[in-house]
């Protein structure tokens, strides 16, 4: 078992490096190049005036392709890390913050690659893969004892429902990361008129599509959590801070969906709600650091 745990950690390390390199490549591709052009003109008085103008160019396409390849490696190594750890623990590794974040890294990478393929655009990677990389940085900073595989405490010994509940949360958060990236790029493109980025309509659509995946998943998280709570705690809703922060996130995205579909909000206003929604996701994700209550399983309280 110890060998598999070590192997899992090495794969995680390889995933970290791949995702770091991928994020750099995507950023190089997405930020593009800025060239300052100067022009000198003679005026009617005989003097000369020099003007300068910034011109923006898309980044090298090869950087984008390289980013995709490295993101694929990152996802692959994260998958191996999860698999080896899962085999060692004889369960899906989701029981503490190390395992949860490791699987989250995998989910973000996979979700991003799916959206990249579906929309044929790579610029989102500059943000989404950077989030995945930052997640690996966070994992490196976690207490080292969390890297060990420990037996589950009795409260967590409900494997099918725990796996479904926590996996849904991970994939919901991963799709919200994609929607966040789409919203952020939307604002960037609009503010700086960055023409090489995907069109505003496409970014708006990506943000919306990601939420249409994440929102039902988050609903599923709340429902599965309630079913599990009913079996474990005798009550399906306890107003526990972790529960209510997930409800808060759900409500924020409910506002996004209602404003968009019923009020016709598009563009910057919707993009800002996506920013706020992802802040709520992070608030829920890292809530174990400052919440008390029944969800104190992460090993980081």
């Amino acid at each position: 078992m110890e060998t598999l745990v070590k192997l899992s950690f090495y794969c995680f390390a390889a995933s970290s490096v791949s995702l770091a390199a991928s994020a750099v490549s995507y950023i190089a591709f997405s930020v593009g190049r800025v060239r300052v052009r100067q022009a000198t003109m003679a005026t009617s008085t005989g003097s000369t005036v020099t003007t300068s103008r910034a011109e923006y160019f898309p980044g090298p396409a090869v950087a984008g392709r390289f980013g995709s390849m490295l993101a694929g490696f990152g996802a692959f190594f994260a998958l191996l890390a999860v698999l080896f750890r899962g085999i060692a623990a004889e369960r899906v590794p989701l029981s503490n913050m190390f395992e949860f974040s490791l699987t989250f890294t995998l989910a973000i990478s996979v979700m991003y690659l799916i959206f990249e393929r579906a929309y044929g655009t790579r610029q989102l990677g500059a943000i989404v893969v950077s989030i995945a990389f930052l997640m690996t940085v966070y994992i490196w900073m976690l207490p080292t004892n969390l890297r060990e595989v420990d037996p589950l405490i009795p409260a967590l010994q409900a494997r099918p429902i725990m796996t479904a509940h926590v996996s849904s949360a991970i994939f919901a958060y991963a799709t919200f990361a994609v929607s966040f990236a789409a919203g952020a790029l939307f604002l960037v493109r609009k503010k700086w008129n960055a023409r090489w980025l995907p069109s505003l309509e496409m970014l708006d659509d990506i943000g919306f599509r990601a939420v249409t995946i994440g929102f039902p998943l988050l609903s599923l998280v709340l429902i599965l959590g309630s079913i599990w709570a009913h079996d474990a705690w005798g009550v399906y809703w306890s107003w526990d801070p972790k529960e209510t922060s997930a409800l808060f996130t759900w409500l924020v995205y409910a506002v996004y969906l209602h404003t968009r579909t019923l009020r016709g909000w598009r563009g910057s206003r919707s993009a800002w709600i996506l920013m706020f929604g992802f802040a709520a996701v992070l608030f829920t994700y890292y809530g174990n650091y400052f919440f008390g209550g029944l969800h104190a399983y992460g090993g980081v309280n």
Partner: protein
Amino acid sequence: MTNATAQLSPSRSPMEMAIDRVWRYFCSVRAAIAEIAFLALLVLIGTLRGSSVPESLANGVPFLRPLVDRWYAWDVFRSPVFAAVLALLAIAIAVCTVNRVPGIWQTINHPRIRTSHGYLNGADTSATFNTNSTTDELAGSYEATLREKRFRVLTERIGTDTHVYADKNRYARMGTFPFHLALILLLVGGIVGAQYGFREREFILPVGDTRAVGHGTDLSIELVRFQDSYTPLGTAEEFESEIIIYDGGEQVRRETISPNDPVSYRTATVYQTSLGHGSNMRVTDDTGVELYNGTVDVGLFNFAGNPDSPAGYVEIPAAGVTMTVVAPDIEPFNAPELDTLQLKNGQMYVMLQPLAGSDAGPQEFVIDQGQSIPAGGLTVSFDREVQWSLLQVAYNPGIPIFAIASFLLIGGLAVTFYFPLRRIRAVIAPGPQGATLTAVPLAKRDWSGKREFFQTVAALESGLGVTPRVKKPAGSEDWEHVPATPSAPSSTG
């Protein structure tokens, strides 16, 4: 919404007008969004109340301390404001849903087929095919293409023009109803559970004891056996209780329960929650009359000053005292300086405090298992240590409602999001050399809808062998699959 915004008739009575206003308020999407946002704010305030954030805030900004104290004191989720917002939202959902039914039903079953030329010309996205075919031939090809892509096609002949309305996933618009119904059902389930159910949070059972469930049931539960195991680090690995459920004194179930594995009998469900230890204590008076004989559960409380010393207490009115019992430090190597009692295994610290109204001082002593100690006219005996199991017994009649709501919620969302309504309007008119088809998607600022529209256009193009004139909004250059044709001047993006 359209019904709600109908003009008020001047002949209506004040009552009718008032009802109409209330109805319009509840139909207002803007009001509903404001209510959801306000609910989110309340949930955030309540969530932070359960965290260390307010405390950190008060530590950082001392003058906020009174505000933070009020924050901690305010139980948001049980406040009238929270209940009122939930009620308001539930009503708004119900009214809004009822109000939307006719419009949605109309769109599904009797959509308007006719399209004005002004609409076609003003659309930001369109495709125009100039063909040599007749109007009927072009209409036939167009219909076949749409049907191949699973569109419903409705046509109407007006003069020489053929108007075509096509839609896909029209019933998905109904998905909003089960979703919103589910939200109401969740609230109903919660109310039903709270109103007609019960929940015994601390159903403590020492091994060998039997306790009645109460709450109008004739059930009682006996703890036959309790088993726990620990990791080398002292963390509980697993624990389970073997229980017998009696109904009217008759044994009806004998089961082993553990966390996540409860047992149900009729309306009651028994959950394994926690574990602990207790001490069997007896108190007699001077004449030997037994005033108390039972188990004092230690572990629900801690001894003041040492969180590692489990404690418990029992009030004995017959003896006029409260008896507090403290067990030995369970982790003597953790903060040993706090272990002031220095109890050994098999010992208990006992304190007898007179109940209110007595001037007598407390009696304190350490007692060994099997020992009896006289104290203040009473004799306290410590018979033996016992293990107890902390169970929960609950009945929630709202569960079936909750289950139905869950299915409706997820199903409604899935239908709404994964089967999006797609609509295309078109007019086929005779042109100078043949028929001309102009098609427009009903997908304003809907990137996916437009992409699907252009996929349909591409299919029609390959079927007809005619290159269309395409108009698309500025900045939508990422529809790579659109045939490269000279575009008409772009309209707004």
